[in-house]
Structures are given as structure tokens and as C-alpha cells.
């Protein structure tokens, strides 16, 4: 089930990724135009977004972040999640690797136009923040009866 969200079936997606990466290298991320609110690759937290006809599902990967420290807001169709993860260093320890994110973060996600800011739900489990935003009625596909 989860595979449907993470495994883009066409290899076309991979080609786009490769092309994007190559272009990033060539033009130093300034060309072609990227979404004004997009984050650079590898930014914390990682985000997956999916949609069903009824709602939009946003998954933020926030391991080790206290759910109470999360600040989630939505304005028009831009969802913003900010918070912090402060890792206290162990005393008298020699660090060999520090790959994990440390500090404050904020990530904005542009949702489809029909997102309803009045109907948002958020849950946090095992380090994943799952936000469900309902879509407006009018945007749902409707069956039209032939008379």
C-alpha cells in the first residue's frame, strides 16, 4: 500500500530526477525555475505528499522531534510545519559521525488549490507526522447522469 506513494512506477520519474540533478550541477540550482517554496534535496524534514479524490495526505518524517514542539499552520493553500530537534551532545565523548539534523526547521508545502484550510487533521506516530487536509466539495469529480 505504502509502495504506491513511494515507488513511482515509471522509470520516467528517475529520468526526471537525474535530469534535475544534472541541471542543478550545471546551473547551480538556479535554472530551471523551481517552486519558490521548495527545499533543497536532503532538507529536514523529508516530505511525501499524496492525494485521493477526497483529501490530501502530507507525511513529514520527523524522527526524534517532540510532537508538542511542532507548529503547524495553514494559510490559503500553503501548509507550514516548523519545530526543532535539539540533540544534546554526550559529555566527554568523541564524535565520529554527526549526520543527523540538529536545530530548528521550517518547511512549507504548497497544496493543490482545492485544499480546505478549515478541515485539517494531524497525527504523529513513530516519528512521522501525518497531516490530512480535506478537499473542497466542488473539486471532487462528480458523476454526471445522462438523462
Amino acid at each position, binding site marked *: 500500500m505504502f509502495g504506491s506513494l513511494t515507488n513511482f512506477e515509471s522509470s520516467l520519474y528517475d529520468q526526471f530526477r537525474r535530469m534535475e540533478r544534472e541541471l542543478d550541477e550545471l546551473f547551480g540550482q538556479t535554472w530551471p525555475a523551481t517552486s519558490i517554496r521548495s527545499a533543497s534535496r536532503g532538507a529536514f524534514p523529508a516530505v511525501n*505528499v499524496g492525494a485521493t479524490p477526497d483529501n490530501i495526505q502530507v507525511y513529514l518524517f520527523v*524522527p526524534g522531534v517532540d510532537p508538542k514542539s511542532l507548529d503547524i499552520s495553514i494559510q490559503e493553500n500553503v501548509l507550514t510545519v516548523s519545530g526543532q530537534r535539539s540533540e544534546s551532545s554526550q559529555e566527554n565523548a568523541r564524535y565520529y559521525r554527526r549526520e543527523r539534523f540538529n536545530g530548528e526547521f521550517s518547511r512549507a508545502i504548497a497544496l493543490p488549490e482545492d485544499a480546505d484550510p478549515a478541515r485539517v487533521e494531524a497525527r504523529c506516530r513513530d516519528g512521522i507526522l501525518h497531516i490530512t487536509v480535506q478537499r473542497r466539495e466542488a473539486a471532487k469529480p462528480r458523476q454526471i447522469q445522462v438523462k
Partner: protein
Amino acid sequence: MAETTNISTQPSQETTRRSEPEITLSPPVDICETDEGITLLADLPGVPRDGLNLRVEGNTLLIEANAHLDVPEGIQPLFADVRSTCYRRGFTLSNELDTGNIDASLQNGVLILRIPKRAELKPRKIEVQVH
């Protein structure tokens, strides 16, 4: 003759591609050492307790984990930073580490491993005697 059978039972190209092993993600880690041992922290978002598989093979520590996510039926992906639910990473350990007494805990998607040093191999302070 046998060849004909092979061709007829060969799965379609699409099925073949899907059965290939999934991409695995290498989780970011923090590793530090004290006199007592080594502490390793790994980010494994979405991994429940039963999705974690830790083992030591020879002198290699292997971390394998599967994330679980509530995904509604019929979802269409719009954007994905994370494109797999399988995490995997390995580290070679050294002799002075006591692999039989590794303590692991998983909380909020973060794995904490404490690998103690064998008691007899902990560094000792050598007192300088002043006469």
C-alpha cells in the same frame, strides 16, 4: 521444447521489474565513543518496534528496518522525498566491544544503540606516582 515452456511461463516485463528488491535507504547516524562504550543514534522514521531487525554477524552490526505508514486506498503520489520504506546500514565493530550486551531502544523513530566495551578492555587511568 523446454524453451517453449520457458517463454510461456516468463512473467511480463512489468512484473519482473516490480519483483526486484526495493531501493533501501541509508539512515543518517550520530556515533560517539566514551570510556564506557559506543553510542549510535539512527533516524528511522515510521519504524515500529516489530519492524526493526538488528543483528551482529561476525564483527558486523547490521541495522535493517521497515517503516509502516497509514496510506489510504487509491492514493496518488504528488511529491516524494522518501521513496522507500526499507532502511539498511551496517558497521564493522572492533574486538573490544561487547556485542553480546548491546542495548537497543526505539523511540519516536529514533534508534539508540549502546554498545559497551568489554570490562577488561576499558581504558584505565594510569596514576603517576610522585616521590
